[in-house]
């Protein structure tokens, strides 16, 4: 009986010590997160309702920024272009990386080399990628148009120097750059599909296509879901590739939301308005992701 309080006290001391240790492990990262992510993001929601040019204090302007957005045709163009990019970039990258992963999941000679080669674009500097692809796309002297001309097309596309073809050109480079990364994720997912399932399917007489549909795809569901979510968010906030490749041009043909935010904020010093556009982009990303989670949940059930 006399020992009870001692035991309780020591357990209590242990617990509080554990808490302190836990916090001290957490704190360095949490302080950084708080100062550089949490507080600024919170402030962003405030600045979106102000008129602020960085120097003088932010002036509360209510919903002015948002009503201005409604009438701003450049904003709508940027929004349209963001969706244009995403709608093509997401399925194309998904398809290409899945195909690559299936191809490179077999036992064949030099598979390590081809896997590395497919991953290479992702680790290459984006500025170098843009520079080289721009040269390849050069309308009069570029190799791509030389090849197209060799096939008898007299008027090959202008690619990055034409308003109609600049977005397809950017999408091609975007898919080429990112497919290696997602291939790696899918390749990892493929390793988790049990080999016995394939054997069972074969015994049941399933051909390669049915094995893919009945075994591979369901086995890859969790991976594919993760890849789709990441790809969607990445596509909606594409920035660097477009900035260095076309700078939004020609005209506004490749102007996307992130770039419009950059332009309004850092080139025209309208930080309040830029914050308001950021909130719209944030809302879109959030909504799309929530829908994806709901769809995935329903499939799980």
């Amino acid at each position, binding site marked *: 009986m006399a020992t009870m309080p001692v035991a309780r006290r020591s357990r209590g001391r242990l617990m509080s010590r554990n808490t302190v240790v836990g916090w001290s492990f957490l704190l360095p990262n949490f302080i950084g997160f708080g100062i*550089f*992510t949490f*507080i*600024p*993001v*919170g*402030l*962003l929601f405030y*600045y979106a309702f102000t008129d*602020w*040019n*960085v*120097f*003088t204090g932010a002036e509360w302007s209510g919903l002015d920024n948002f009503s*201005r957005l409604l*009438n*701003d*045709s*450049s904003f709508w163009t940027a929004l349209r272009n963001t969706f244009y990019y995403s709608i093509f970039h997401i399925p194309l990258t998904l398809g290409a990386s899945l195909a690559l992963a299936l191809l490179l999941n077999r036992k064949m000679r030099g598979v390590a080399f081809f896997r590395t080669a497919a991953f290479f674009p992702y680790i290459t500097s984006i500025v170098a990628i843009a*520079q080289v692809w*721009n*040269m390849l*796309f*050069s*309308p*009069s*002297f*570029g190799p791509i148009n030389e090849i197209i001309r060799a096939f008898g097309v007299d008027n090959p596309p*202008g*690619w*990055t*120097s*034409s*308003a*109609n073809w600049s977005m397809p050109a950017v999408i091609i480079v975007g898919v080429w750059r990112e497919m290696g990364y997602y291939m790696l994720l899918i390749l990892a997912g493929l390793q988790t599909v049990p080999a016995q399932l394939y054997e069972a399917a074969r015994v049941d007489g399933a051909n390669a296509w049915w094995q893919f549909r009945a075994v591979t795809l369901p086995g890859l569901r969790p991976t594919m879901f993760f890849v789709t979510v990441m790809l969607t968010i990445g596509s909606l*906030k594409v*920035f660097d590739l477009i900035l260095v490749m076309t700078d*939004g*041009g*020609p*005209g*506004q*043909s490749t*102007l996307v939301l*992130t770039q419009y*935010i*950059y*332009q309004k*904020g*850092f*080139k*025209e*010093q*309208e*930080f309040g308005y*830029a*914050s308001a556009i*950021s909130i719209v*982009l*944030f809302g879109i990303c959030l909504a799309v992701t929530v829908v994806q989670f709901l769809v995935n949940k329903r499939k799980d059930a």
Partner: protein
Amino acid sequence: MKRSIAVLGAAAAISLVLAGCGGSSGSSEAASGPITLTLAGWSLSTTPEFKTLADGFHATNPDVTIQVKEYDATNYDTQMIADLAAGKGPDLYVQKNLKNFFTYQDGKQLLDVSDVAKGLPDTVKGLSNYQIDGKTYAIPYRGDSWVMYYNQALFDKAGVDYPDGSWTWDDYVSTSKELTTKLKAAKSKALGDYQHNWQSTTQGFALAQTPGADMQSGNFSYLKPYYERSLALQKAGAQVKIGDVTTNSLTYQAQFGKQQAAMMPMGTWYIATLLAQQTSGEADQFKWGIAPAPQFDATTAGTSKTPVTFGDPTALGINPKLDKSKVTAAKAFLGYIAGKQGAESLAKIGITPADSEAVADTFFELKGIPTDDLSKFAFATHDTKPENPVAKSTPALQNLLNELHTSVLSGSVTVDAAITKAQDQAKSQGLTK
């Protein structure tokens, strides 16, 4: 993106609080003893002007040392605005051009330096651009204007007469076409002219030269004839198409310096670059000259008149956070760089000072510079209008007009359609009436 805007916000907010705690304890009388001032500059290894001015001033005022703080050349304004907002700005900083002057002045980031302006001679150009409501907020020390460079060797090869200073843009277009044809016949790959893909190459002239042109009016029809001429040149093959300029990252220095084009409109800053590159071998050795920019019509063309061109004066302003005891020294430095001594030292390194008339003789003593009468006339005589009218809406309008520029020159839309679209956008964003 979202994040970095907000980080800046947090930084600004924190710095405001800190600045409030600090208070200004400086005394108002000039300090005795050594003073150190910081001066913003960019690309210090290739842009000697900052060090030249700092050293020159130190030589006559041994008590004052000017330390140059390096910024990135292309992101200069973005970095400067961030630094100033965080209260970490340099004591003296450059207005690279007039585009963001309104932002700095309206944001109360420039000290009133009207007393320095009063002491300067009338020949210092561009001062009025930095005046708002009768007060001066920055002192111009450098005044580049756009002229036309031409390659005499290529003109000789084609057998075409050199420009005589009387050209309108129509003369420029026809000569460029003639040069292209004749150079081709003479087995040269060079084209008639090169217009760099900057929007100012077309729009700067259109705004400066067209009577009644006003960016803020929301009527951009003044751009039309200038774009029609550029498109005609592209179509005739007399100049590189804009798509090839952007995709291959062509530089104007290589286009003219490596004799790919016989004529090129460009700012006077290129004189020093071309001389240096001809010495180092980066550019070919050939004889060249400068002529006045081609004109809107005959009323301003010819050496008996004053040709109209454009260019923003580069000026230096003082950070209002500067300790009061140092203000006198900072103002003395501004007076020095815009005055005769500063102008002379700039001219010696091939830079066009704001007071270019006073130093034309020094300038034409540079090694390798063309010394014909027309080059001297083009350097010294011009009515230079600002590229960026000083107004709140200018940065946003310039971005819209840049979109117009790339869409028209890439042939994506007609000139009329692009102008109508830009006008509608400007209106929908509330930038013009």
